[in-house]
């Protein structure tokens, strides 16, 4: 059995460049890595003899419009079932040309998750076998989960936020 400390040391010992930050929240490690490193890191973690990250729990995007140059992020939730250790890998991408290599060759599960992330945020996954919109109509030409698209009708006047201290 290994814990967060072991994982942190193993990763920092193997990769000195490209790891931009390591945080811990609610007992889960967050690795913030450069996009050039992400596939190498996950491949190494998957094939590591003790860490053995054999399960991709989920993959999703997040949009931070205020962070200039790193507006979009891709979050990988990985799980080592052998050690029962969960952790996350975050990759930040610029708003222009958000591109990142695919994970499909490592985990077959990544296929639809990447399609969904592409659909919601417009992040291009290089090398993906079939990067098409999955949930919405095929000819949708925008990415609905980006923060610039409000959900509430902008013409609505009956709910004024200033009365509620927002």
């Amino acid at each position, binding site marked *: 059995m290994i814990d967060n400390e072991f994982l942190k040391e193993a990763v920092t010992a193997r990769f000195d460049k490209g790891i931009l930050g390591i945080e811990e929240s609610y007992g889960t490690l967050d690795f913030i890595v450069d996009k050039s490193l992400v596939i190498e890191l996950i491949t190494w973690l998957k094939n590591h003899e003790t860490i053995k990250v054999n399960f991709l729990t989920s993959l999703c995007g997040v949009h931070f419009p205020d962070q200039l140059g790193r507006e979009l992020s891709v979050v990988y939730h990985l799980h080592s079932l052998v050690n029962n250790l969960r952790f996350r890998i975050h990759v930040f991408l610029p708003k222009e040309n958000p591109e990142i290599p695919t994970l499909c060759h490592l985990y077959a599960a990544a296929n*639809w998750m990447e399609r969904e992330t592409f659909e919601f945020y417009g992040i291009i996954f290089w090398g993906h076998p079939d990067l098409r919109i999955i949930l919405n109509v095929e000819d949708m030409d925008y990415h609905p989960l980006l923060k610039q698209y409000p959900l509430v009708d902008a013409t609505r006047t009956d709910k004024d936020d200033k009365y509620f201290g927002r």
Partner: protein
Amino acid sequence: MPPEQTKMINISDDNFEKKHIINGVVQSGDELKQYNYLNLGPTHPATHGIFQNILKMDGEIIVDAQPTIGYIHRAFEKLAENRPFFQITTITDRLNYCSAPINNIGWHLTMEKLLGIETPKRVDYLRVIVMELARIADHIICNSVVAVDTGALTGFLYVFQWREKIYDVYEEICGARLTTNMGRIGGFERDFSKSAFDKIDVIVKELPKALQEFEKLVIRNRIFMDRTINVGGISGERALEYGFTGPNLRAAGVDYDVRVMNPYCSYQDFDFTIPVGSNGDTYDRFCVRQEEMWQSLSIIKQAVKNLPEGKHHADVPEFYLPPKDDVYNSMEGLIWHFKIVMGEINVPKGQVYHSVEGGNGELGFYLVSDGGRQPYRLHMRRPCFIYYQAYPEMIKGAMLSDAILTMSSMNVIAGELDA
């Protein structure tokens, strides 16, 4: 997708021999084969939901399948970014609507993890009772429908009334039956009534008889076994690659269960076993679900027997609605009530992932909070969205009737698939 144009070969054609030889290379004949394309769905009665599969058929054998999903996509993740936290519970109902309380409680647990709320033991036990009842209801639907798809309608009609009785218990607890919106952040709206416990008692006492009869009807039935054994199988390694969780993964021989791996809601207090299969085929999935129902019954028994005394909610005035008496008679109560209902309460910054063992796999919530009054981002890990990708691979080389059976035994729920 337009069907690929294939040239008709006229057997009596004198040039038939020549057409097999292209650029001097003898073709294997596969290129000359004519395939049929069959639209299975979107609204085919045997798919139990809105699923479309374009099947490439060689006679009766499936060569390839292309699933189309999203017919009931309702943008839950976008909706969730625009709602106060307590209103997201209603969204989770509509994910796997066959076991809505598990989704509700999974969401409450995520919020409690973010806020650092410790719930009393009684809340945990009550939640365990409801979640296991929901698991039984979910598996009853799935397994009886598998039996229907093999032609055994009797079992379905027989065990389905027990699902209704479980829904009666939900009704006692929260007033709703299908989309339950059960509980609150911190616990339950009210303690379980005596009549709820009576109804649970009836289920615990009499469901085993119904289950036994159902098993007697199908589990060693020659027709059922011939239809399900070695149909739609997947190996343990492939299942892990495809992100399988829940009974589907355990049927393939991997003993991963969130209740044991990362116990929540005091699951560590209970004594139960995790059934695993070996082939990962339809029969194993059926048997694993069947055994899980027995285990769930045993958990419910233990929880009812050892139910601790105490409060049915944690003390979190910021998130748990005060009793109406306080709201009408005290300033404090009225203020909290107003603030909660209007969603005017800030939460800590941070990101949290919490998962529960849902009816068909690991249901996870990844919540990014910026300290505001709505989630900054809420990603839901919907188990069947992830494992349904393996469907084309699982039905390759099978017959059409096997494809129907494989789908129903995978427990793919349209609401969860499309979010």
